């Protein structure tokens, strides 16, 4: 019986990634034609509207960038942990924690000048994300507790804490009874770039460049990649796995926390329980699309942001939000599947049980030598 299996590519052909990405999205769009026509819409009109609203004109581009900014930061957060083989599923929560600390500091330090206050809030954002990550990071590095579970669980803790602050201690007395927190001080708003875009986009871009260089070009990044790809080789080279796990996770949490502070001082006006808005979870998809590489995160975040903006705008054409969500999911799914083919290829294999990753010689040695 001949059946297809995925085999890891031994040679990675440059440019495959871009081609696979475009093909993946194209296939999804073709399938979307079926979806749209059966639900009574004109695919051409819908796709044109999606594209225009996401990319055509400075306002559209600004909207896409506004969406892409937090996605780039949370995507980077997930990717930094991912380059070490760790999964930070809780960027959503760390984003909230960062925003919360930043908002709290803004309340007491509202006398500071704008740039200084913004800088302080950014630092607090990073600190907030790191604090929420501290428990999972230590549990992972010293006790081997899966960070996937712990980071995820803390998401709900962080969101509930904000809900409690909203309805309790931080409830704005001037809110006419609404359960909201007072807006961040006027001077703490990030300066705009054009349209709805603000300099948060530049912060994200700068950080992406810093991490791209750090991971690919520094000794620190080399150790991180080595530890992530082959832990025993890293140990052999004298690298402390514990410290690497700890730093990767804390940095990941810090970056997600910064996303919270950027969102708070950028698009949002006040801290609220809906501030993270799924950006943290979406960051996992962004990082996966980017194959855990900081260099890919920028592209993936813009694509994701554009799909969201486009998906929203087609609702003005009468496309229901459900159909729009399905379409968005299909496009991202297509791109994700394509990402798989960057590292793997399809191989047709005969006998049962002979899997592609099976290096029989190694398997033999591993089993017998244990």
């Amino acid at each position, binding site marked *: 019986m001949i059946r297809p299996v995925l085999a890891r590519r031994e040679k*990675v052909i440059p440019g495959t990634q871009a081609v696979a990405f475009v093909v993946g999205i194209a296939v999804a769009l073709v399938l979307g034609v079926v979806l749209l026509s059966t639900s009574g819409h004109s695919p051409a009109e819908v796709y044109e509207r999606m594209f225009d609203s996401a990319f055509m004109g400075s306002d559209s581009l600004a909207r896409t960038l506004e969406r892409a900014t937090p996605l780039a930061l949370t995507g980077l957060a997930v990717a930094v942990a991912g380059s070490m083989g760790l999964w930070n599923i809780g960027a959503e929560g760390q984003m909230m924690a960062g925003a919360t600390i930043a908002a709290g500091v803004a309340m007491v330090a509202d006398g500071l000048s704008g740039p200084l206050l913004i800088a302080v809030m950014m630092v607090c954002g990073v600190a907030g994300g790191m604090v929420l990550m501290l428990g999972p990071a230590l549990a992972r590095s010293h006790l081997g507790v899966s960070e996937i579970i712990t980071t995820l669980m803390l998401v709900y803790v962080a969101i509930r804490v904000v809900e409690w602050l909203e309805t309790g201690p931080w409830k704005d007395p001037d809110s006419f009874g609404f359960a909201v927190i007072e807006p961040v001080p006027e001077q703490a708003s990030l300066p705009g770039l054009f349209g709805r875009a603000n300099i948060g986009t530049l912060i994200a871009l700068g950080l992406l460049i810093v991490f791209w260089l750090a991971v690919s070009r520094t000794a620190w990044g080399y150790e991180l990649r080595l530890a992530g790809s082959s832990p025993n080789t890293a140990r052999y080279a004298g690298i402390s796995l514990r410290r690497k796990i700890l730093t990767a996770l804390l940095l990941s949490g810090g970056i997600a926390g910064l996303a919270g502070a950027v969102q708070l001082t950028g698009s949002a006006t006040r801290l609220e329980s809906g501030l993270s808005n799924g950006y943290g979870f979406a960051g996992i998809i962004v990082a996966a699309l980017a194959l855990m590489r900081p260099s890919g995160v920028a592209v993936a975040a813009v694509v994701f942001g554009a799909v969201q903006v486009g998906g929203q705008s087609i609702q003005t054409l009468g496309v229901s939000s459900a159909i729009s969500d399905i379409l968005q999911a299909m496009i991202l799914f297509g791109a994700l599947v394509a990402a798989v083919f960057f590292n793997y290829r399809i191989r047709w294999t005969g006998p049962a049980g002979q899997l592609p990753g099976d290096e029989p010689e190694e398997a033999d040695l591993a089993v017998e030598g244990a």
Partner: protein
Amino acid sequence: MASENADHAVWLRGIEKQFPGVIACAGADLRVRPGTIHALLGENGAGKTTLVNVLAGVYRPDGGEVWVNGQRRHFHSPADAIAAGVGMVYQEFRLVPSLTVAENIVLGAAPRLLRSSEIENRVAELSAAYGMAADPSRPVWQLSMGERQRVEILKALWRDASVLVMDEPTAVLTPGEAAELGAALRAMADDGRSVIYISHKLDEVVAFCDEATVLRLGKTVATVEDLETVDRAALAELMVGSSEGGYVDRPPPIEAGGEALVLDGVSALSDRGLPALSEVTLTVRSGEIVGIAGVSGNGQKELAETIAGLRSPTGGRVELNQQDVTQTPPGARYRLGLAYVPEDRLGVGLAPKMSVVDNSVVRSYRSQRQGLMLVMAQCLGFCRDLVEKFGVRVGRLHDPVAGLSGGNLQRLLLGRELAEQPSVLVAAQPTRGLDVQGVAAIQSHLVAQRADGVGVLLISEDLDELLALSDRLMVMYEGRVVAELDPDAATRGEVGSAMAGQVSA
């Protein structure tokens, strides 16, 4: 034909199995009579695991015939083999920790609509029948390794296996548990079932088994009909054969220098927490090759790892160039002059998914820095020199090393370790699985290092290699150095006896 085979529980006839770049089985034969325990012996990479995986339906043979209970079989999957009565107990247990013993045993083969208490009763009956105590209602995560193994065996018996394959079953057991296992296997044999028993431990093989088949380089080289009459030393010698092709001869001994590496009463535990090294004392001087012989699993791996700093000793001292390094981490030991070629080339020595360049600087990346940045040009230059000097055949330097052949991996690894002139080289199985050219290249490098005054500790399972290259030869058995021999005077037979634990005083 069928009548001729009817009296065999298993007949594997001329099994051939090839993997990309490796011939695992080259016409291996195995005949097992019903009601017997049959040992399958051979060194690492001899093809034992591949052969039993053919029997278990995991691999399909390229050639040869599989007969089970007198019938020719073509297994397409492990399920086919199970249906034909072949039960496999792997070294890594395949149990669900959160399920109970009974649930694990019947998983996938449970009678429909049966109450769990009734299943538990039937499991209890089965375990009682073979003297394998196992509380059916306990979750598996609470069990010891020995109890888990019993569950694996019961799983096979539940599926009515007439042939049970055990892959190094006692590696995870305490001596007491091993004896219990032996009794349980005997009970099964008396019941008419047959057992194929893979092990490196000759003591056990002689104690538990009736017959034996020895594999070497994928071929059956000997069958032993009556294990009670056979000499253990002869078995050991049969297992460690010689590879094809010549051996680089070492030039006449030069004056060995000062003590480069000293181990004083070093003990260590295995990954399973069982004692693996006991009070090993040895010295390697500059300019000599000290060989370590032994049947695999007698502490060689732990010895290498303890010297390299990857395993903490439970007692004793390790000295490198007259400096106590017992507590020194692995990176610092390298900087003090200790080079290490580990047994696992890919996964320990080299990171499979990283590029040739990245792998070439594993030891030296700290010196390829400028400020925080790694200087790519410098790394590339370093890598190019290394590839050229050691004749590593590579495609592009930015491709992952997983695509390289065994010989080229080893050239890259050895070259990297030798790049900064070490004073001690520990090489574990450096030529295992390499082709003739690769073997010769690696051996000449070892000899050249010796000429340069490096102290070399060569751990190998290739007896001829050890006899040709070593200035002194030590034999390990059950975690101890049991003999030190002069390789020029010792015969293969003498080394074989020592490897089997028979030391003539």
